[in-house]
């Protein structure tokens, strides 16, 4: 039977690649190839000759914009559609009643996309009848498989495609409107635009530009990239959240998303990682300290992030070695990275016995024992800032392996 055929793996691969770009269903593309294969395997004496150049389906832009899927055989233009699993075939309404749809549609039943057979022919008149009742932008018809469908005889009986009549080429703005949002465009205007574009191949380059911006394939590619980016943002936030306990996960996500606008979408980028860790550390610090101490704590964090040891950075910036020493002892007596709280007099007094040297330590704000809390608390905050930055540095490794 000439209405049955196999589709080679190579053709399937080419079809997959093409439909990814055009955004049209793979099944329809394969169905058209199946009809072509069936024609190739027909007896050469039947004289069925394909004119691939004359088929609109050879043009990616026309396929993407209007969903054309035709073969041109012996001057006859035949639309081809794959029968869905529910036994129906579907076509965009704007194609009905145009120069494209003068003959009708070959309905193809595919078998796991490896092959299949042409099972019926839907004449253009049947589509037009369905169109008169239609309310949706697409038309769908139930296909009844012909008991002994003869592809060659069916094609022989079809009318020749009419010679292209002059139509006004569609304006670029109308094409753009059609591609992006045709809901407000009356169906007759859509058909006029389809006819105008198909008949004027000079306008195809213009169509190509519009399609490259607004095709279904383009929207799908953007959404797939959107999913990738959203996933990266979430993963980064999940990694960072345990290290920045004062920041809500949503805040971290917001920061990550914003940084992508400056450094691109790859967290493996050293510039991205550096900016992320620095920003998150500073955001966390603003929740911990304020005013002049914030500036000093940020400086400590920067120094630690650029590779310095916490104690060294704090000593250099605090400029009060005794306060730093006391703060260090207090910190060691507490949990490693517990929540920050101001030092108590008891903690300061408790720190002295652990110090190697009793400091002569007094300021204007003396404790009952004659010692000030303010510089100690400041040094303590800086130590926390340093520890925070040190922990954040670990995030760098994790991000590089995202």
């Amino acid at each position, binding site marked *: 039977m000439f209405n049955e055929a196999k589709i*080679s*793996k*190579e*053709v*399937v691969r*080419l079809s*997959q*690649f093409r439909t990814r770009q055009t955004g049209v269903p*793979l*099944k329809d593309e394969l169905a058209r190839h199946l009809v*072509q294969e069936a024609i*190739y*395997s027909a007896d*050469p*004496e*039947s*004289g069925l*000759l*394909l004119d*691939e150049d004359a088929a609109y389906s*050879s043009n990616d832009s026309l396929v993407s914009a209007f969903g054309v899927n035709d073969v041109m055989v012996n001057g006859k233009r035949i639309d081809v559609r794959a029968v*869905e*699993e*529910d036994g129906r075939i579907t076509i965009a309404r704007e194609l009905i009643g145009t120069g494209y749809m003068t003959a009708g549609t070959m309905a193809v039943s595919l078998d*796991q996309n*490896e092959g299949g057979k042409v099972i019926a022919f839907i004449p253009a008149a049947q589509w037009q009848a369905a169109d008169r009742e239609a309310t949706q932008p697409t038309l769908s018809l139930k296909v009844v498989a012909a008991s002994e469908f003869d592809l060659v005889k069916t094609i022989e009986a079809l009318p020749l495609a009419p010679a292209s009549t002059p139509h006004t080429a569609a304006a670029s703005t109308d094409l*753009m409107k059609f591609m*992006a*949002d045709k*809901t407000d465009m009356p169906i007759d205007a859509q058909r006029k635009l389809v006819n105008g574009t198909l008949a004027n191949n000079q306008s195809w380059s213009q169509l190509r530009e519009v399609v490259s*911006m*607004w095709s*279904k394939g*383009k*929207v799908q*590619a*953007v*959404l*797939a*990239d*959107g*999913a*990738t*980016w*959203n*996933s990266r*943002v*979430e993963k980064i936030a999940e990694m960072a959240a345990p290290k920045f306990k004062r920041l809500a996960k949503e805040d971290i996500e917001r920061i990550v*998303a914003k940084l*992508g*606008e400056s*450094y*691109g*979408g*790859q967290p*493996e*980028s050293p510039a*991205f990682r550096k900016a992320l860790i620095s920003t998150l550390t500073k955001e966390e610090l603003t929740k911990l300290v304020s005013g002049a101490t914030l500036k000093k704590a940020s400086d400590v964090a920067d120094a630690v992030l650029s590779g310095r040891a916490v104690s060294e950075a704090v000593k250099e910036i605090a400029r009060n070695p005794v306060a730093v020493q006391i703060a260090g002892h207090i910190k060691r007596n507490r949990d490693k990275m517990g929540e920050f709280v101001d030092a108590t007099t008891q903690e300061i007094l408790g720190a002295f016995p652990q110090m190697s040297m009793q400091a002569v330590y007094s300021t204007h704000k003396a404790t009952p024992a004659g010692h000030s809390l303010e510089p100690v608390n400041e040094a303590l905050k800086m130590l926390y800032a340093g520890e925070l930055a040190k922990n954040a540095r670990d995030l760098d*490794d994790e991000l590089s*392996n995202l």
Partner: protein
Amino acid sequence: MVTGSAELDTVLELAPEWAQLVRNFAQESNARSAAEFLSKVGAKAIYLKALSLGDAQSRFVHMLQAHYYQPMLQKMLSANQNLRRFLSQRRVGADEMKGQVVSLSVDITQKLIATLNKQLSQKEEDGFKVLLPAYVQRSVHNAVIDYIRQETTWERQTLQDMNLDPQQEDPRTAVADDVGYTPEHKALSREQVTQLNELRRHLESMLKEPGAPVEALTVVDCIFGMGLTPHSVSGEEMTMRECCDKLKIQAETMARRIARCQVLLDKGLDLVRRKIYKDLPGIAEAWQRGLNVNIASRRELAQQLGLTEGEVDRCIKGRQFSGTEELIERGVITRQRLPELTSKGMVAAFVPVDLNSATTRDLIDIVGMPKEKAIRIVAERPFQKAEELVERKILTKDELANYTKRGAVARNRPADAKRLDLNRASQQDLEQCGIDARNAEVIVKTRPFLTWSEVEEFLGAEASCWHALRQKFFLGLSPG
């Protein structure tokens, strides 16, 4: 010259009884081509004429080769969409394409002539069929498919060799970019990220609008794995079947459920497209196909972007750049050059280069390693972490820091190690994992797949092996 055409005179010389036909043809159509005349005469008449010739038969066949088969084949091959698409995917230029057509037409002609001679020698009654255009058309189709098959096999064998000689032309520049052969897969530029953040905000607010078509948007969310609603997880795309189950889309049969899901998906995609058209016009520009300066070859930088030799040197030496502005900041190009280069498609998106899977060429061209180091790394991998290269004295600490800055990472994915790559697993592996023989065969035959939706398109949503597929396999982005 009798007819005013050397070609037609040659025909007349061998078939003088066609003189009247030739004259009528020349007058009617004002045509001078022997190919058109022979087509008009028809296959049967040509074959009978050839049979009737004695010693002159070989000259007649030779004339057919030059004036019948060759022009017909060149026309058919030039119009062959499979060939055109295959070559254009490989960025073959127009001249090279013409050369390929000529070369293929010579091959096919020789085969057809051999068949014709065989028919003539055996005086086969239906031997004229070899001359029928429909027969030639079929031969062209088969020859093109054979050609594509051979080329694809060569590409796969070549690309699976991870130790490409960096001195040779990179074969990836001449193969289809339908699978993520190169490390730029999913590299997002800062312009794209800006647009994606905007898109997310818009989609979130669309979902909250009163009376919004939430169902259609949720299907889009699930199918693409956008993570916008509680039904989806970002980065985890769903198949139609999974989406139907997740959203409890009801219908009498699975086929109907899928059909309903498809309608919702189409509706959702139209809504997104309309939103982009109205509120996010920057997306169109940000997703124009561009050339990423971080991975482009020297030739692409010079020919496609028109960078000067000095600019190309500075660009390759300074890799990688987080954005096009950085090329100015770091003195690769001047500010005046930026608009022109952007209009030619220049983008700068950082690409991670995995030390455990990158080609030698990528390590040299993108990361900037000397050839010897790159070869050693490829020979001694895998590495659990980048620091292992220092521990194993392959790189110094400073070298590692420099290469890391330029994009080197050491990916170690234990989760994937437990699963098999569906794009590479053998049929036996597939069957051992519980995939029935029929579906395993389809998978091996039709891969590689980029998404699970593509797998679903081939296996059908009702395939019993879905659970095993999703649990035991991942889709590796490599030539299968």
